[in-house]
């Protein structure tokens, strides 16, 4: 049964829709305009950057000189590799250590279970940066200063609390019958753990993406723990390059674009997991 709405209500609806789209379009513009402006100007000549900043790149104003400078003066491929090693390495550690601990907390009732859960989740709210003075000392003592491995260890410690908290919530929902059936068949506890993993895959995806972006983007720990040219991550490499070439607009725009591209690609690939994580449980 359809009810015809009175004209003014229909008009109100249309007006609301138009106003909402207008507001969303304006805000999308605000969010994207600065990024797009940098992208399009990174391939333009210096004159074009200043004379026609809003013009799209075209054969008339095209000039890749910025990218040439970046590739001659800085080793961005090296920075990318370092960032990839650090991010990927940390994610692997977080994956194994995190799922194992979450499995133990959710599966076994042992004495001190709750206390252990609480201890491991303390780090969700307290920023690891506040321990930097001692982290640097510890890394010196362990001979891990200016190594990528040192960064990986710090990021693993940083990512574990939230990963364990979220994963153990999800693992509790895995039906008990399933695990008990496997036990009856004589499966070891380690085998059952490996059976549970695929069942929490969506949560795992979210946890990994959630950790990936802050690790890739971090400036603080690369600056303090691994600042040498050999070990620079993209974020630190871009930071020091930009500081040095601040007046070379072509190079600045090109290096900004280069360092933004991997994150934007990762975001496009993983945006579903990321958004699902942020809106966890609520979106049905």
């Amino acid at each position, binding site marked *: 049964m359809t009810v015809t709405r009175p004209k003014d209500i229909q008009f109100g609806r249309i007006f609301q829709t138009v106003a909402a789209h207008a507001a969303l379009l304006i805000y*999308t513009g605000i969010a994207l305009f600065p*990024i797009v402006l*940098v992208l399009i100007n990174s391939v333009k000549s210096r004159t074009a950057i200043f004379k026609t900043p809003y013009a799209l790149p075209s054969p008339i104003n095209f000039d890749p000189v910025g990218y040439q400078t970046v590739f001659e003066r800085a080793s961005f491929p090296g920075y990318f590799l370092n960032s990839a090693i650090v991010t990927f390495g940390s994610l692997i550690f977080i994956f194994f250590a995190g799922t194992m601990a979450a499995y133990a907390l959710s599966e076994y009732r042992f004495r001190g279970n709750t206390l252990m859960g609480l201890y491991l989740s303390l780090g969700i709210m307290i920023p690891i940066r*506040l321990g930097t*003075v001692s982290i640097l000392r510890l890394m010196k003592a362990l001979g891990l200063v200016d190594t990528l491995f040192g960064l990986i260890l710090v990021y693993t410690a940083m990512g574990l609390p939230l990963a364990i908290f979220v994963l153990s919530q999800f693992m509790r929902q895995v039906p008990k019958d399933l695990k008990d059936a496997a036990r009856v068949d004589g499966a070891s506890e*380690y085998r059952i753990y490996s059976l549970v993993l695929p069942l929490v895959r969506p949560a795992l995806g979210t946890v990994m993406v959630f950790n990936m*972006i802050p690790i890739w983007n971090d400036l603080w720990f690369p600056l303090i723990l691994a600042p040498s040219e050999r070990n620079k991550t993209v974020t630190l490499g871009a930071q020091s390059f930009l500081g040095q070439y601040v007046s070379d607009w072509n190079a600045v725009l090109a290096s900004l674009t280069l*360092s933004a591209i991997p994150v934007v690609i990762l975001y496009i690939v993983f945006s579903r997991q990321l958004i699902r994580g942020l809106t966890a449980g609520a979106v049905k």
Partner: protein
Amino acid sequence: MKRKSFPWHIVVFLAPAVIVYSLFMVFPLIDSLRLSLYTTLPNGTEIYNGLGNYQTLFNDPLLAPRLWGAIKNNIIFFVIHMVVQNSIGLFLASLLSSTFIKGRAIYRTLIFTPTVLSVVLVGFIWRLILSPLWGISGDFLALFGVKNQPWLGLVDTALPVLSLVSVWQYVGIPMMLFLATLIAIPDEIVEAARVDGAGAWIVFWRVKFPLILPTVGIVAVLTFVGNFNAFDLIYTTQTALAGPEFSTDLLGTLFYRTFFGFQLQPGSPTMGATVAGVMFLIILAGVLVYLFGWQRRLLKMEIEL
């Protein structure tokens, strides 16, 4: 019957996480608090100094103004985020939760883009946009009849403008969190209010807003912790000196300068740890207010209802 053997598998499962977390997070945090109670002698040895470092930090004619200045700036930074970022986030979320709007997923994804960029990129992008040399900000401000200025170079404007840059970057997070809560509100509740004659405005404030209050608390505490720990944006745009004249100095930049030294002042690990100790206490206070003040009050409200 065979006696149950010690559950070694539990130890194996927990060990990697507990070891890495304890060694690289819990131990450094505690050790850093311990170091804040020590002072470094000129010959390099460290001796116990009680709360002496904290006294110096709060009273020394050179250090105290920096500390209070950083705390004041940090509060301004936080207030701007709370007011601007979180209300824009809520506004966008309420638009994105209306089912009659098409393309919501696309808007959501695009608006979230700046949040995934590193603060270094965001800082430099806005330095370019705001640069009087390029004049982009000038072109836009002219539309509103506002005269362009070197916003990042003036004592009065640098901090508010940088706060807004940070708002621009992070508005996606409150937006997503509010959106999740709004979507979860059952349609029946909203319909019931509509049938009773409530307009969209009343429905939002009287029906939806009370239901998103728990999310307001989460957003507030996340903003608080993030803001009182911020460093990258100021370091990228204004260097560790947080110019002009320390007007953009936050606790994070003060921590960095105290630890590593700057210009003529040598760095000191113990004083650095003391600044970190102050930050730790502030963040802890914020988290406790949230856990015991806000959540308990919400619980009471629910019981009364």
